[in-house]
């Protein structure tokens, strides 16, 4: 589905991605983890074509990304910080994105699911962070694309909404989607992900299931296993 070869990216002198290789063929939920500044968002943005890599190639469904934009029809993306044009109302924003992308079959279902209908006529500037994130989630999932990329989906959400999000993710997984997710909340990652991809210094440092990670680091607890990876103690 997604295949990344020898990806390099620098911002000024700072190397963010350094020959990264990654293949994602399986369905299910893949968590991309790593310390701050390890290149998670850069990797995601490269897949979306928002960041142009210096070297290397990315193929999605066998097609190269370079100078191509139509592949984005197959991707739903949830940005890290939900910044929307403030003078639009929620319903206007939804309409606008539908106008750009085409019909959204699941819009109403998701609006009800996340309780967005309570503030659907409000302007986006007047919404709280959590409300914006719910709008963001509706916007992401309503097109039902086979590949979903979520950058910090739990940001600003209350515990009830996080539970709902988990429920939704399990449903999406069951319907055969591939979901890439980054998060700093380890409990969330552990409960949803099938595979962990750990980035460090611009490369893939670990790639496997939660169980394999625990085995490799000799830790019973997921959070400790990640911490061990971060400090490099198991090497």
């Amino acid at each position, binding site marked *: 589905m997604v295949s990344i070869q020898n990806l390099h990216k620098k911002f000024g002198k700072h190397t963010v991605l350094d020959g990264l290789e990654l293949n994602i063929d399986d369905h299910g939920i893949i968590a991309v983890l790593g310390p701050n500044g390890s290149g998670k968002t850069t990797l995601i*943005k490269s897949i*979306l074509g928002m960041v*142009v890599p210096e070297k290397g190639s990315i193929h999605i469904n066998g097609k190269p990304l370079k100078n191509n*934009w139509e592949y*984005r029809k197959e991707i739903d993306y949830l*940005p890290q910080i939900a*910044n929307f*044009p403030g003078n639009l109302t929620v319903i206007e924003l939804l309409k606008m994105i539908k106008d*750009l992308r085409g019909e959204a079959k699941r819009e109403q279902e998701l609006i009800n699911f996340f309780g967005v209908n309570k503030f659907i006529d409000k302007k986006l500037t007047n919404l709280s962070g959590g409300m914006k994130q719910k709008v963001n989630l509706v916007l992401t999932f309503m097109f039902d694309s086979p590949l979903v990329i979520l950058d910090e989906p739990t940001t600003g959400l209350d515990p009830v909404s996080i539970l709902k999000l988990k429920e939704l993710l399990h449903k999406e997984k069951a319907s055969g989607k591939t979901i890439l997710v980054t998060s700093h909340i380890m409990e969330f990652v552990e409960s949803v992900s099938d595979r962990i991809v750990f980035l460090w210094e611009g490369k893939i440092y670990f790639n496997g299931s939660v169980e394999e990670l625990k085995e490799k680091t000799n830790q019973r607890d997921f959070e400790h296993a990640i911490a061990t990876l971060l400090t490099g103690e198991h090497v």
Partner: protein
Amino acid sequence: MFKILKYSFFDLTRSSWSYIYFLFYLLLGIVLLFLNNDLSNAVITLMNVIIILVPLIGTIFGVMYFYNSREFTELLLAQPVKRTSIFLGQYLGVAVSLSLSLVLGLGIPFIAYGLFQSPAIWDFTMLLITGVFLTLIFSALAFNIALSSENKIKGFGYAILMWLLLAVVYDGVFLLSLVYFQEYPLDKFSLIATMLNPIDLSRILILLKLDISALLGYTGAVFKQFFGTSFGSVISLSVLVLWTILPLLNIARIVKKKDF
């Protein structure tokens, strides 16, 4: 691209600045016409206002809109839309709404005054055409500057500086060099120097149309002598078109390589 243009345009028509800009021209047109009672005089006065003010407003609006719609841009970049369409759409949204404010703001009082019965109609049309060109050119330049600098304050600074250079400083330097090198043949130099500045070019274009030799100045006179009135107009119009297209091509070039 047209969908983005549509949204940018409607976004701007909600902003009070578009109306202030429109009302300003409306008021200016009314005052000039009904106090002055002379269409041709009004056109000349308007020319002086337009060639300074239109570039300024185009520059400021262009930079401001670009920085303010960053969030919108980021949202669009993740959608299946071509990059160049996003930015050209936004650019056209700004340029079209500014041009509309100008054309409607000045057009309404002039039509009310009886423009269609007057021989000055073509002079006035030429005034509007150059006004629209200046809007297109300076908002495109503003987009170039905003795209090249991440920092808002710096972007604004560079944009104002560009306006100041082209609208004020350029003329001064130009005049000084004419005085300084007066012993040399300066026709070619001044022809080229005029073409390199869209504001000067617009001034000459309008003055050629108005056919007022006293106001043409040295460069205008050279222009007229060199090209003749009608050919001179064609040349200056085509250079204005170039001035519009080149910054747009550059926007497309920057956008293809930029990280967001």
